[in-house]
């Protein structure tokens, strides 16, 4: 079925098609429409789920843990302050190995109050062990929720599907709502092997000393690494079943690219026409859109970027005292590679500052005009 829907509703549809059984969420702009539609879907009987109207995001994630531990497929959504409030419980969900899927609408952190897009909220959670998918179209949002469950339930790790506030959450695009039967075949009912079970009573999360905690963390890392291949496999299968394939990254005009723009989310969409225009002018530029950020696809990034002349990374997030996360991690992945190109790290679009094509063009132009980046961090368009 074809439907023009907003980004937020794509999350709701993804949860509905994945047959989420428990939804526990707390409203926050710009996430509210996600849960409002889910609430209606439950009330109309289209979605057979328990809807817990919790009193905070911390509780939203805690309730999600309880439901997931009991074996139910669980979904929630939040943004910025809400995600930050969940922080402690995000760690808990990972350690408890719970395959929860959450939509996070990237919103800049307060103060000052803001509702516009920035990735710092989800980037701040990159250490929690949650897998992260950065989307750049309404279709991808819906599809990623379904794929997220498929990966989560194989590695027993939680996954967040991330989208830009307003630019994606509140814009409308034509979207294919997949057939429920096809989704059921792709994503069958889940039987959590480790769920709370009165027939197999066990305590989960008991005190663990230094002699064995380390190994439990090793397991999480190993399963996170395993998810790299799973994302590719499940993404390929998605292509076979639904006609849309997803990978760890999305490449554009990369075959003979000398200069590569690495970015994510909606800035990547804006970049494509810029790449086209510059190609017309004879510049050999290409684009890598990082889709799966956790686990970071280091091997793939090395394959794609080693040997190129120049790489510029555009981050819509910042770690004060360092720079942008996609830049840091791309640099780190390429560090030991002999033919690693010089890399420029730009910060753009914080707090929802618009990043139109001319700004993307400016960044690529700046990189083309320099042999080496001037500093560890490059700000674009600061009013000075």
């Amino acid at each position: 079925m074809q439907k023009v829907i907003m980004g937020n509703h794509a999350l709701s549809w993804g949860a509905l098609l994945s047959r989420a059984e428990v939804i526990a969420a707390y409203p926050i702009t710009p996430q509210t429409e996600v849960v409002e539609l889910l609430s209606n879907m439950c009330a109309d009987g289209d979605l057979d789920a328990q809807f817990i109207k919790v009193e905070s995001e911390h509780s939203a994630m805690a309730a999600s843990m309880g439901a997931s531990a009991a074996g139910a497929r669980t979904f929630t959504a939040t943004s910025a302050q809400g995600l930050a409030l969940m922080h402690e419980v995000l760690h808990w969900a990972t350690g408890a190995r719970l395959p929860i899927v959450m939509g996070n609408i990237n919103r800049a952190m307060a103060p000052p109050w803001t509702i516009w897009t920035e990735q710092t909220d989800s980037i701040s959670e990159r250490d929690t062990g949650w897998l992260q998918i950065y989307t750049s179209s309404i279709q991808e949002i819906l599809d990623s929720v379904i794929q997220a469950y498929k990966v989560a339930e194989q590695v027993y790790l939680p996954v967040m599907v991330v989208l830009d506030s307003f630019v994606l959450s509140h814009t409308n695009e034509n979207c294919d709502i997949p057939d429920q039967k096809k989704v059921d075949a792709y994503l069958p009912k889940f039987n959590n092997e480790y769920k709370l079970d009165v027939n197999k009573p066990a305590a989960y999360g008991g005190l663990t000393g230094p002699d064995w905690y380390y190994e439990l963390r090793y397991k999480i890392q190993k399963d996170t690494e395993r998810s790299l291949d799973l994302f590719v496999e499940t993404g390929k299968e998605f292509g076979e079943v639904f006609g849309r394939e997803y990978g760890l990254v999305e490449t554009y005009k990369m075959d003979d690219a000398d200069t590569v723009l690495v970015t994510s989310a909606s800035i990547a969409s804006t970049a494509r026409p810029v790449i086209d225009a510059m190609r017309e002018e004879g510049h050999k530029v290409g684009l890598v859109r990082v889709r799966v950020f956790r686990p970071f696809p280091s091997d793939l990034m090395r394959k794609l970027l080693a040997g190129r002349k120049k790489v510029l990374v555009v981050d819509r997030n910042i770690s004060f005292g360092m720079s942008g996360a996609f830049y840091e991690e791309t640099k780190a992945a390429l560090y030991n590679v002999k033919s690693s190109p010089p890399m420029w790290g730009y910060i753009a679009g914080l707090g929802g500052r618009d990043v139109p094509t001319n700004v993307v063009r400016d960044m690529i132009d700046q990189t083309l005009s320099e042999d080496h980046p001037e500093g560890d961090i490059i700000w674009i368009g600061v009013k000075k």
Partner: protein
Amino acid sequence: MKYTIPEQEIMCSGHKACQGCGAALAMRYALKELGPRTMMTFPACCWSVIDGPFPYSSVGVPLFHTAFETAAVVASGIRAGLDARGEEDVNVVAWAGDGGTFDIGIQALSGTTERNDNIIYVCYDNEAYMNTGVQRSSSTPWGAVTTTTPPRHFKKERKKDMMAILAAHSIPYTASASVAYPEDFIKKVKYAKSIKGTKFLHIFASCPPGWRSAPELSVELARLAVQTHVFPLYEIHEGRYYKMSMNPKKKDIREYLKPQGRFRHLTEEQVAHMEKMYDEKYEWLLDLAERSKPYFEAKKEK
């Protein structure tokens, strides 16, 4: 042998509770009545450690250890998860200390209670943050010494009235209990099991190291607390109707205070002040119980 409480043991020996631990007794009794079709969640509290280190457990039922603030809402989540899968006959129990109930856990508890989620919440109250070394909580009674309320600055705030706070959410059942009266506690657990909605049980659990009292006196102190009217045993139905579980002839509060090091510093004047405080509260409860009589009478007739 005529057992006055269920014979079955669900909790096993070998747990890490201190000698004479009231919290261990409370769990033993609760599980006897709850039975094996029970799932529990503990926030940070003594029981996080008492249950035993990975890979062992002593409660004998599925247990999800969770973050400090979250016991009530994790229980709500477990219930929703079970309901979604059609397993509605399992007891879902949040089991927390006074810290995780009165203080850091109160927001989630209020949320769960306001939604009237179908869980049993048991607060075993040893009147301080015992697991981290006896720091005061809002459940610590007036006059008590803890590591954050030393004798020269003993706790001058009254114990928070959790029963009243939860009754204000109009839940079907709120009840206090004491480890010295296991039959009464078990009866209350049984009633809680039989109805839907949020049920809150507040059980007085002696703590020898925290209270600086002898381990062998744990049950006696839990009895004296009730007999001196310091910790009355009562129920609140539907948030409005009060029923005294017992109305013992008042024993001298000094009998209760004397064996506990945490009260040793009190002057006679301060003890008299405490006594007055508890007497007033007790009178107020009796009054409410009197006014609630018609409700229970009508219930009996049905």
